[in-house]
């Protein structure tokens, strides 16, 4: 395995739905279950609010990984939102893979409000994967980096 360059600090954007995953993240926090600081959370009402453009934007601005978290299928606060997410993102992620963004850089996870431990474990695992993959430059728009 190649040695990972320590100079690169990865950037991970996590979209969390307000009702399950964001609450799961809160539980991880109040249980003091750590996960790497490179994970930054954006709160959305439902995972289905995540437009593929948001994911593209993240990679355009140099994100190394994007993860979506929602309620477990069948438990969506809005009944069916995460089903849309699941289908939509399966397509989106396979398209990104085609563009050269390794499929490991995108992930979708179902985390309930009670799964603080799972949230932390998922984030640790994802950050580890991203760290191993190293820097992602494939979609980065350098014009944005003045």
């Amino acid at each position, binding site marked *: 395995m190649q040695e990972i360059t320590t100079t690169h600090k990865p950037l991970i954007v996590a979209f969390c739905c307000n009702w399950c995953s964001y609450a799961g993240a809160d539980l991880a926090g109040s249980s003091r279950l750590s996960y790497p600081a490179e994970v930054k959370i954006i709160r959305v*009402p439902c995972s289905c609010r995540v437009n593929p453009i948001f994911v593209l934007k993240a990679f355009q601005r140099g994100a190394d990984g994007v993860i979506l978290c929602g309620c477990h299928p069948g438990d969506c606060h809005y009944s069916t939102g995460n089903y849309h997410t699941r289908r939509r993102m399966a397509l989106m992620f396979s398209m990104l893979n085609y563009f050269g963004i390794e499929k490991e850089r995108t992930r979708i996870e179902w985390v309930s409000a009670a799964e603080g431990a799972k949230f932390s474990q998922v984030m640790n695992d994802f950050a580890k994967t991203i760290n191993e993959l190293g820097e992602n430059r494939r979609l980065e728009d350098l014009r944005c980096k003045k």
Partner: protein
Amino acid sequence: MQRIGVFICHCGSNIAATVDVERVTEALAKEPGVVYAVNYQYMCSENGQQLIKNAIAEHRLTGIVVCSCSPRMHEATFRKTAEAAGLNAYMVEIANIREQCSWIHKDIEEATEKAIVLARTAVAKILLDKPLTAGETGVTKRALVIGGGIAGIQAALDIADAGYEVDIVEKRPTIGGRMAQLDKTFPTLDCSACILTPKMVDCAQSDKINIFSYSEVEEVKGFVGNFDVKIRKKARHVDETKCTGCGVCMASCPSKKGLNEFNMNLNNRPAIYIPFAQAIPNVAIIDPEQCLKLKSDKCGLCQRKCGVGAIDYKQEDSFVERKYGAIVVATGFRPIKLDNFNEFGYADNKDVVTSLELERLMNAAGPTKGTLLRPSDGKHPKVITFIQCVGSRDVSGCGKPYCSKICCMYTAKHAMLIREKYPDTEVHVFYIDIRTPGKNYDEFYRRAVEQYGVDYIKGMVGKVYNENGKLMVQGSDLLDNKQIVIPSDLVVLATAIEPDPSVRDIATKLTISIDTNDFLTEAHAKLRPVESPTAGVFLAGVCQGPKDVPETVSQASACASKVIGLLAKDKLKGNPCVSHVDENMCTGCSQCEQVCPYGAITYIDKEFRIGGGKTETRRVASVNPAVCQGCGACTVTCPSGAMDLYGFSSAQILKEVEAICKR
């Protein structure tokens, strides 16, 4: 130009121990748009809130970012603070630097860096925030209950008791539902009619309750607090206001071939009939399929005999339109059809009956006047075999995959009642598992075994066939590892129950969701079990899932309390973070309408100016903010980008992404 204030909370040492709050304050003060940044020990405290209020006034802030605990904790607090200081409550953003930062990181450098990024992200978002006002709508102080079984009756009585008007719409000619057909109720064995009919009478006598019997919901429009419902009153050919329920017409009717639905078609009734003695309303109805007058214009006897002139052969369906603030769905169940279970011989043998048929056969008001006689020859059955799980827990496609829940208990009840009344009768029960959780339930079942000597056989029946007038029940006795044949006189099938098929139509009209078994879906399986996902629509009884009478009554009362809570409000304040449409971009493609789980989106034809003094009419989406719950499904589905969400706009989220990705 926005003037943003940033307030960084120490949360005692919860934040300040890991995050260098001074550095965060310094960094944020330099952010474009930020005119003021300060840190304080407890922002949520009285003093902290006062600090915010003062800063808003002093620095003429247009928005505030509070870097503190999770917004799930204190967002509401700081919104109130902002509002008290004259700011719009929605010009508040929270950067969660406790749960997402100080509590999970140990390294001060790392945590401080992250806190700054999170605060900047919140600033990026608030710069695009707009003042939002939650819309208000009035509430019609009347509830509609669809279905007049025990669930509907209980919900209606409770709502009426709180002083609100309730209408019950029942598709059958009388209220009472399935419970009215039962003989006794477990686990106390009190007579079903004795406990139900007083409630039915209460409904009839309450000046708050209005019963639309033999009626169906035709159309539902509107939203929580303001439903417009059209009700079809089917023609019963009898004037309800005149009929006294004397029954003279029934005695005079020459057509007696109609199947008595109330008695599960086990006997016949005249073409003009009152379903049962305690029917509410106690008004006759004519079955147009059987009535000689309606079929061939012969007869007319009942009209001549009726002392009050209530018979009206020319009556037609009529419609009533009313407004409601809340709707309770209580459409109930029916036993499944047994076409896929011919191994039990139901189709070919009159003495193979369903449990609901047995209820009628044992009921004092039933076809046998309460004496248990078998349908084929009217003799007392000496050996009775019960078969449980007929069609339940069946994933082969023939039956239902779920447990019907009530069968174990009612079978124990039947077995016990039979042994009590006819001690010389032999009773066998084939079971797969006995499921009797509930207060006094398992004790009840054990009583059937221990006190009444009912023979429970662990195993399933493979075939029931007639041999020399005996019903041969061939099944396995798994504990004995034998195949046994029990020559029986009567076989009772604990038939699975399914939601009444009318529920599909009702669900479509109310835009509430239905699961793969046609049960209505609740808003949250654990925490909102009586609410549908559609605001203002509530669920009671078996339409939501299999349940027995006590559970149904509890759920109905829970429903009523939810309805009362809603009707008690004069105004409903909505969530302002709802979808809105840019009509100039909308192409009217309908995709948003299809993904909306609440039916909040409709289409309107609207005139647009297209220059040169001309206008054109286009079909565009229109969001009802009172119905929209703000999930955002439509915003992503919209192919033209016309849909957006207040409070979580696409532009805001993109700015947040940018802020996070800024290295």
